[in-house]
């Protein structure tokens, strides 16, 4: 009940929300300091942002092994699950800042302060997302993640396609929010609660606070509406139309941000609401996910085959990748606790591994884009002979995204595949295999172009220092997972969101 969730300030666990507080302070600082910075010194905002992210990381580390903390009357929970995602988001944000420092300084020089402000705001939403165990908190977190995205997608103000990117993203985003909100309202209507655990209790006991007709159909409809809403956020087919245009039009670091951070945040919310609140309704949402996952993998991959622009290719491939992430959620209907637990861990591991390989690929795209701003795939021809290091990193990320053995991406797919087979959903496993082969074809054909064609342009590409660092870091992470797959998988099973 709402009344029960009332709280007083003194009861707030400040330590638990310290990372969020630090980010808030940093983003305020950026907003204020930016006013007094001359145009040529705007990149100082990046340093403030980096300091904020670093501070948040330290604050988060101080919370490790501190047990589960609840505050704001149970709206905000800090458990292993939340911790895992928060670390991911902080790492991704730090890498993104590294990747975009030079880009911003060159492309959007005088308004980069706003960029950092919006990026940090979005990060704030992300940090809240996996902790939010309340419909309202979830909704606020999701909007905090998304709304800054609308603006930074249109950051190249004089570029029509960037404007289009922003408008499309905005319209779809607002629509999906409305749909989701409708679903949430229905749930509240039936259960008289916005707390996820309370909702779960009511739904599984089937004792509703007030008599209601067709309660189960209403709940099923509400779950599907919420599913649709999140479907937009994670760009699952058929709610994916905004993604390719938005990725292509946005500044490339923003595309990286949308396809990694924003997507992972969507998954963080999606997984917690489905498993925590609707755990007793797996027979409703799992088949829904099965259909969406099947469509998402297949359509994402098939359209990716035809792309000529590397950013669009990565956009469609990231849609397909979202399909693989959804797969484990599709097989849990009425399954044993062991299978649910494994599916849960597989989805989490996939998201973690995906984030780094996709970020890596985008880092290389940013680097190559300095010389070839149109980001065509043909610009990559013969890259191996111009920039062997960049080409090697790109090949590594592409092979990993493709799930080529024994790269990190293979292990991600392996875990998902194993959970799908273990649950006995063979048709999805077969479809996943077929899709992996399609994916392999287009990822590898970019790789082949880099290594087998002669370069048209032999000019070297000057890659800024910070970007090189980011790429090396990503290669190291992906290589580490390649050799020792439990690197991430070690965390995921421990991140017990629910006691299966």
């Amino acid at each position, binding site marked *: 009940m709402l009344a029960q969730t009332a709280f007083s300030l003194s009861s707030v666990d400040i330590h638990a929300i310290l990372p969020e507080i630090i980010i808030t302070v940093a983003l305020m600082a950026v907003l204020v300091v930016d006013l007094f910075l001359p145009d040529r010194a705007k990149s100082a905002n990046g340093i403030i942002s980096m300091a904020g992210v670093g501070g948040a990381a330290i604050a988060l580390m101080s919370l490790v092994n501190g047990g589960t903390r609840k505050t704001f009357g149970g709206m905000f929970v800090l458990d292993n699950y939340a911790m895992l995602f928060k670390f991911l988001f902080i790492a991704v944000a730090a890498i993104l800042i590294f990747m975009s420092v030079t880009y911003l300084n060159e492309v959007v020089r005088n308004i980069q302060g706003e960029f950092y402000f919006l990026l940090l705001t979005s990060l704030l939403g992300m940090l809240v997302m996996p902790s939010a165990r309340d419909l309202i908190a979830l909704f606020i977190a999701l909007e905090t993640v998304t709304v800054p995205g609308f603006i930074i997608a249109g950051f190249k103000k004089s570029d029509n396609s960037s404007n289009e990117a922003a408008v499309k993203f905005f319209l779809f985003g607002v629509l999906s929010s409305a749909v989701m909100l409708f679903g949430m309202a229905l749930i509240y209507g039936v259960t008289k609660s916005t707390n996820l655990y309370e909702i779960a209790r009511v739904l599984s006991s089937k004792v509703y606070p007030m008599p209601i007709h067709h309660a189960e159909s209403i709940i099923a409809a509400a779950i599907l509406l919420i599913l649709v809403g999140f479907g937009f956020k994670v760009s699952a087919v058929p709610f994916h139309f905004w993604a390719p245009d938005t990725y292509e039009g946005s500044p490339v670091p923003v595309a990286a941000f949308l396809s990694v951070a924003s997507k992972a945040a969507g998954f963080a919310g999606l997984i917690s609401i489905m498993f925590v609140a609707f755990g007793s309704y797996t027979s409703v949402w799992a088949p829904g996910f099965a259909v969406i996952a099947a469509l998402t993998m297949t359509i994402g991959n098939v359209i990716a085959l035809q792309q000529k622009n590397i950013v669009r290719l990565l956009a469609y491939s990231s849609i397909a990748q979202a399909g693989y992430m959804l797969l484990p959620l599709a097989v849990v209907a009425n399954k044993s606790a062991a299978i649910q637990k494994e599916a849960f861990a597989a989805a989490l591991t996939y998201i973690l591994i995906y984030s780094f390989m996709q970020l890596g690929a985008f880092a290389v795209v940013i680097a190559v884009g300095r010389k070839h701003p149109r980001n065509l795939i043909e610009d990559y021809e013969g890259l191996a002979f111009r920039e062997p290091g960049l080409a090697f990193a790109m090949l590594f990320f592409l092979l990993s995204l493709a799930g080529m*053995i024994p790269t990190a991406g293979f292990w991600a797919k392996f875990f998902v595949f*194993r959970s799908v*087979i*273990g649950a006995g959903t063979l048709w999805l496993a077969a479809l996943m295999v077929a899709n992996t*082969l399609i994916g392999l074809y287009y990822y590898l054909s970019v790789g082949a172009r880099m290594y*087998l064609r002669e370069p048209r342009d032999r000019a070297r590409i000057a890659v800024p220092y910070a970007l090189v660092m980011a790429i090396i870091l990503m290669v190291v992470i992906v290589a580490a997972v390649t050799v020792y797959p*439990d690197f991430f998988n*070690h965390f995921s*099973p421990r991140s017990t969101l629910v006691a299966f």
Partner: protein
Amino acid sequence: MTFDEWLLSLVVFLPLVGAGVITAIPKAQAALIRLIALAASGAALVFGVVALVRFDFHHSRTFQFGVNTRWIDSIGARYHMGVDGIALPLVVLTVALTFLCVVYSQKLMPKPQDKVKGYFALILLLETGMVGTFTSLDLVLFFVFWEMVLVPMYFIIAIWGSERKEYSATKFFLYTLFGSVFMLLGFLAMYFRSVDPVTGGHTFDMIRLQGQHFGGVGFQNLVFLGLFLGFAIKVPMWPFHTWLPDAHGDAPTVGSVLLAGILLKMGAYGFIRIALPLLPHAAKDWAPYIGGLAVISILYGALCCLAQTDIKRLIAFSSVGHMGFVMLGISTLTDRGINAAIFGMVAHGVITGMLFFLAGSLYERYHTRVIDDIGPGVLQKLPRVGAIFVFVAIASLGLPGLAGFWGEVLALLSAFNPAPGLSSSLFRSYMVLGGIGTILTAGYMLWLIQRLTLGVVRDKWANDPAIDDVRPAEVWAWSPLLVGILALGIYPRAIFDITNGAVTGLARLFT
């Protein structure tokens, strides 16, 4: 850990370390790169020989130099390696052949020759994958190494190949990948139906998976189908062989040598190491079909050889036939047949590897692969290369006293008396058909020798000074193989003494 526990890891990963070092060296230091490749593959060879020397031949059934440590806890996959009498000959063959390939490439690198770095790094990476496949005792580990060979071989064909190199490389890649997906499916199916005798959970351990019931013969047969697809494409057996002529034909010399010499063996090894011992019931149900496909491969390979005009494609099709004998031996499920199969694999690796070296050398000199364009008269123009070619071609057709003989004749003999429960009339007809295959093999090989080496040399080649006889790099790379062909022919026990103990243990499952 003791030295014995480190030994296999050294053989497997020294080439990988070498590849890593090479990528760190500037491109301009071509000589240094060649030297490091030589050192890394040489070190792997040395440790491979050490394994051969320290191997306890009286216990060739047991896995030696075993190492078994934690790797991926969350899925129960372990870093488990070891070799028995079945794996050891193939491990030694791999390190030896790769080393010779590196020796050969010191002077004779395919075009484009400016990409020294990638070339040697890829060969070493390939070596790690190949040796790892033969030493893994965990299904996941096996799968990783099995797939690890794909990317390097793809690039070796696609960059340094000839003619339709990209097409061939892609075909090779997709075919193998297609098969291995089914193989992985089979592995996972076994995993989920297995009970680890120690922990009570599931297991990927090949040794612990032996003797498991997997819940029903029907299920075992289905799993066997998955494994069959993966292995049969790699062997390759008719009708899954169509990638082979393209890949072999267009690969550079060293790529063809390693493809024919080692990669094909991975498929047959998979049958012996995984499919047979883990799924003995299914193996028995499937054996007649495998035998049938093997015989078709023998005859089909030989007939295709008769129709080839391209020397490399001819040798490629002859591999289909020779691997048919190997698979026929395996399908009898007898100790004699499987011994013959392993012998046949080693012999084929040495002989066909050598044939591809020769074909590569001819291409290098004549810039064509068309038999009737190079020939006639190679013996006249290049007496030494011609003589070696005749020698190796005769070994390939299975002349007694040379390496090619034992594998084929014992495979045919074993088909006379297949394992109990298999129809002996069926396998005896396989034997007869296989016998016809040997005649056809002799036919196309002799015809090849005649067309290529005998007769009077063409005018356009007669006075070409660029066509020179055996070069030093070729002497170094080839002589061990030539000695091997002769030695294995005269003293076949060199292999059988290693394999027999392990093979009889395996064959006991089918009696």
